[in-house]
């Protein structure tokens, strides 16, 4: 497995822990939602940054109140076909204002990178080394896109309107 953050392969400084077993004394932990619910105070007492992992069936609504306590949210793709986390990522970024690391975990493959990036993910646990090495290519396959992106890249519709922009505010309601 390779870890890609902000487009580059790098060392992962985070450690996943499960629902069972002792918590390691040191390190930045990513805990599942159930563990967070079970030992919340113990986790909050630690000095290290804290991350939480949500299964695709766990709505981010469930951590909304506590979002400020997490430096990282990992969203799991149990299989690449399960696309719930794309919507969850957008909710976290666009509605809940989460600014920390948003990590794609699980069945994360080359052909999903671009979609994930465009939904607000900025870190990836990549299963195949060859996929991780070609990460930049995945994001450059398209130079144009029909939908507005959360990172502010203009959609085709916005590009078409640029000639009008100086004279009129786009999207303003009368």
């Amino acid at each position, binding site marked *: 497995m390779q870890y890609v953050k902000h487009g580059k392969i790098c060392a992962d400084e985070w450690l996943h822990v499960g629902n069972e077993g002792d918590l390691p004394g040191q390190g930045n932990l990513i805990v599942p939602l159930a563990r967070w619910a079970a030992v919340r105070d113990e986790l909050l007492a630690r000095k290290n940054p804290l991350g939480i992992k949500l299964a695709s069936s766990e709505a981010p609504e469930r951590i909304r109140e506590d979002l400020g306590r997490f430096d990282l949210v990992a969203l799991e793709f149990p299989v*690449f076909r399960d696309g719930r986390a794309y919507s969850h990522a957008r909710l976290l970024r666009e509605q809940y204002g989460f600014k920390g690391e948003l990590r794609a975990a699980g069945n994360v493959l080359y052909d999903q990178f671009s979609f994930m990036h465009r939904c607000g993910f900025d870190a990836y646990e990549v299963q195949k080394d060859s996929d991780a090495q070609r990460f930049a290519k995945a994001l450059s*396959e398209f130079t144009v896109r*029909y939908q507005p992106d959360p990172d502010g890249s203009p959609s085709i519709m916005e590009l078409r309107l640029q000639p009008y922009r100086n004279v009129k505010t786009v999207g303003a309601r009368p």
Partner: protein
Amino acid sequence: MYRYDEFDHAFVTERVAQFRDQVARRLNGELTEEEFRPLRLMNGLYLQLHAYMLRVAIPYGVLSSRQLHKLADIATRYDRGYAHFTTRQNLQYNWPRLEDMPDILAEMASVEMHALQTSGNCIRNITADQYAGVAADEVEDPRICGEILRQWSSLHPEFSFLPRKFKIAITGSPRDRAAIKLHDIGIVMVRNEAGGAGCEFWVGGGQGRTPVIAKCINSFVPKRDMLSYAEAILRVYNMHGRRDNIYKARIKILVNEIGIKEFSRQTNEQWAHIRDGALDVPAEEIARITAYFAPPAYEQLQNEPAALLQMRAADPAFAAWLRSNVAAHKIPGYAIVNISLKPIGGIPGDATDAQMHAVADLAERYSFDELRVTHEQNLTFADVRQSDLYDLWRALGKNGLATPNIGLVSDIIACPGLDYCALANARSIPVAQRISERFADLKRQHDIGDLKIKISGCINACGHHHVGHIGILGVDKKGVEFYQITLGGSADENASIGEILGAAFSYDDVVDAVEKVIETYLNIRTRPDENFLAAVRRTGIAPFKEALYAVR
């Protein structure tokens, strides 16, 4: 029609390159078949019983002559000289090779076409009324919103891995020819009290093993808000649609389980966050796209020119074709011509490369260089001068394309069935062919009148059997093909699901059973203009049941 600008061109060109890379990775073993599957599916490429099948997107069913020539050339070069028009206004090739696929897509891109999202669990090609722009009762041309939605849905980053496929249909007329109530989202163009055009959204319709008529979720969404509203619906579905059971994964199941009121509440909650944002469709963009669908340069003509009336009186075969295949146009002196792809005994929706070239030439000559594909697997020339009808009819006839049976008993929808499809339980095409041959006598067909027979080879209902006036569903009973008959279904503005008549019939007996149903109708109709559906709705299925099963 819509023409690509430099951005659309860049998008499809990059898409071809992306798919070329995906195919190369599959061929060199880097991708497993399981990993490649969703990628090829998103590009309309299925692995069928005998070969790959490629489904080409025809957005809202509109084609230029140039595009149809290209599709014919592809059929010649990469397939076996024919192609199949589908119930979703698409075109399918049944015998392409995986290695050729990138080149086929590049050829399509050269005429502004692609195969994107014609399968897979994503937003599929958007379908529309084949009479768009020319129907007298139209509120607004549905292709405008269709094109806006097509662009928005193309490689949508959030909605490319939905619980299940997602189909959108649009009509601009209150008279529904696009079966919008049988779609995941159906849109009707309507006017509000202020006179502005907008979208009435219906949600949760579908066929398959659980047929459901869609429910109205919003009776007026302004055009500028249509994308944010659609995005809100899709987001609720993507998050909450069932993923534990493929047969319960369509949006209709979610809407039924939580109720339209709750579904609407959640949609509005999402909509509130994204409305008036980056998805707002600016007036300039609406105007830009609307301009592509401006009416062609019509001449000032009179209705029913003398030469037409003369030929109609002189040639009964021409008169029969006028009666069934030609529809009224909103402009005086023009007509809508439907070209039947249902010759007696033929395969519904199939066309040879030579026929496609001929149709493309005729569209160029007689209908402003453009044609439409209908969801009933026929073709439409939307803008034909009435004074050209006779010449057009003769030219179509020379190519085997003048069968006067639109809307009649032999104008059958059928899925590919067990002859091609990996999912089918039974054959569909030969059943359609045998019914068509049984009723080959066109005088008898015209006497029977409006009748829609729809045949599916399995419960997935690609042949729309639930909404056939007579629906036929192929089932497998211990390895033997049987056919269940339903009556009274309809896909129009008064949509209804057909009712099962009784025990299924064998392959040998099903045509006799259909004939018996039709004879029963002829006996019970109150007047010749009480059509089959009206009669079934009046009497219910009892008389038909009696006729079919009492003697057994």
